[in-house]
């Protein structure tokens, strides 16, 4: 590592782009040590403004200075704070300076640098980190401008490019399909057969869209009173209802969306069940998702009018298509953001020269 020269903006970071999970775990800061970290960071010679972005996938330190700022001091401080070999940190981190920092922040905030391209959670995390820095009074003129412009750039990227187009998370894909069929997901009545990860993921997605009628059933519901009653637990967790496994076939017509996610290996819903249910709700569509392997819903139910049956392959294909669509927009978005970053950097340097 060579000693650096005078710089205005500096970034030291670690993310999924350069480090695997175990390396990220070592570099990431525990939430309880943030105050201590900030206190020590502020004592580094030459540092005037600084900000820490610490998420599950990235740890980044943004620093600004009008005078000489040694980047080595920041690297040494972080390696000492986390008890890491400086060489290790050097291998699993990246450093950016000046206009590169601006470009990087724009890419991070817009989600094109995220593991799940186009995800929106990162913008909230960047905003939170900035708000935290403002409260601590450690973000000044340069970082304020940088981050506020970063939020604008992120908004622009999401509005004017396709980086956030379509859903890529399984639960969100199902919600998007339910929206295409029924309109508001909040009004959809969901029945989940099974209590696996897919079931939980789907319930979480529906719950986050204010769905008030989530019902869970599973084979463990009735047969063993001493075992963990997973359906009831899940129902409680998501504010839904638990249904006896013996009753679900008679209640199919009451639901708009039915997800099966069990390992029973048997057919749980057949053509006759759906025909009977549709007779009781003829003009209302029914959305079936078979997330089980082997399948739980007989494929022929898809031939019934107003019934839409999707299996895991269909859902994965949609998610992959959406992801491909997002990826195809990344380069376009990156180019536009680079231009915006350069423009901002020019303005910042001009102002600095005038002042």
């Amino acid at each position, binding site marked *: 590592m060579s000693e650096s020269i005078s710089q205005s903006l500096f970034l030291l970071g670690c993310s999924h782009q350069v480090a695997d999970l175990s390396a990220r775990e070592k570099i990431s800061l525990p939430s309880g040590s943030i105050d201590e970290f900030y206190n020590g960071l502020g004592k580094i010679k030459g540092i005037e403004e600084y900000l820490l972005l610490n998420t599950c996938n990235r740890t980044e330190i943004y620093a600004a200075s009008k005078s000489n700022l040694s980047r080595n001091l920041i690297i040494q401080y972080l390696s000492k704070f986390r008890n890491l070999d400086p060489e290790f940190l050097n291998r699993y981190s990246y450093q950016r300076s000046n206009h590169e920092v601006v470009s990087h922040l724009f890419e991070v905030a817009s989600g094109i640098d995220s593991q799940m391209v186009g995800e929106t959670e990162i913008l909230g995390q960047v905003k939170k980190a900035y708000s935290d820095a403002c409260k601590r009074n450690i973000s000044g003129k340069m970082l304020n401008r940088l981050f506020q412009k970063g939020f604008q750039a992120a908004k622009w990227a999401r509005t004017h490019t396709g980086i956030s187009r379509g859903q890529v998370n399984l639960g969100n894909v199902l919600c998007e399909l339910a929206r295409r069929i029924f309109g508001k997901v909040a009004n959809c009545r969901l029945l989940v057969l099974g209590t696996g990860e897919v079931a939980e993921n789907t319930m979480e997605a529906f719950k986050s869209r204010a769905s008030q009628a989530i019902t869970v059933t599973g084979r463990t519901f009735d047969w063993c009173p001493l075992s963990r009653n997973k359906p009831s637990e899940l129902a409680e967790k998501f504010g839904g209802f638990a249904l006896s496994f013996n009753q679900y076939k008679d209640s199919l017509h009451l639901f708009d969306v039915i997800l099966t996610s069990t390992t029973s290996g048997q057919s749980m819903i057949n053509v006759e069940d759906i025909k009977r249910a549709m007779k009781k709700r003829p003009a209302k569509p029914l959305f079936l998702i078979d997330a089980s392997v082997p399948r739980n819903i007989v494929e022929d139910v898809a031939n019934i*009018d107003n019934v839409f049956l999707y299996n895991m392959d269909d859902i994965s294909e949609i998610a992959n298509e959406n992801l491909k669509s997002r990826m195809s927009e990344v380069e376009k978005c990156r180019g536009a953001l680079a231009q915006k970053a350069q423009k901002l950097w020019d303005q910042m340097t001009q102002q600095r020269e005038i002042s």
Partner: protein
Amino acid sequence: MNVNDTRELLWLAGGLYGLAFAIGFLKTFKINWTPFRETPLAVISLGFILHTRALYIRGLDVHGCPLGNTLERIQFILWSLILAFLILRLLWRLDLLGSFCAGLSFCAGWLSLLFPQLDSNYWLSENYEKLFSSPWIELHASIAIFSYGLFSLLTIVCSMYLVQRKALLARKFNKLSSFLPPIQELEVAAMRLLTVGVLFLTISIIVGGMHWTRHPELVSHAKLSVTLVLWIGYFMVFVLHKTGKLYGSKFSKTSITLYFVTIGSLALVNTRTKETNTTPQSVITNPENSSNE
């Protein structure tokens, strides 16, 4: 540009609908330009004002509701279609429906204008006095044509339903289907349009029936049969949907098929009229002229 010339106004109104369709199309495919946001609705509204003026001027010429030739009937249906959309737009924000309506009005409107033979100047004939012998027949004709406008809108909504359904079944979502409303909402909207359309058609038939009982000789059998078949058809679709026997894609396909029969029936009645009468349409024949014949 002569603002008192019906045809010029109709060309302009059609052009504005075409413009609204083009802008709506660009909007759908994410070509963002801030003024585009409300432009299609504004352009459709302006087109509708010109369309109304054109029909008003023609109405003054013919001394009644302008339904005397094919062009007038097509234009009146399109006017009803846009009116129904604008009323619906107050209740629901259905911009893509507006684009579909504008597209249909542009295509059908300009096509009808491209063939001058569809716009005979029947009101310039020597014996011409008034298009309708009685205000009740005028009311019957205008309500019937208005219900056809509603059925046009129903057809557009059903087409949107089928496009969305196809995308859901094929698991392929293009940009067009992304902007379409959910299929359940489309089916509800279609049913409401069918209800209102059937209601207007029923009123029209009751009003027309009152005239027919007094002057049965003035209404051709073809016209009577076609009208009744259409009414029975739409009423059956309404009843079958209400009783849960016809829904989803079959409901949409039946509604679209019936609409094409409706449009076809207009030509049928018109042909029959030409064969039998010098005046534009048997149903609107002046009783005095008829008795002279």
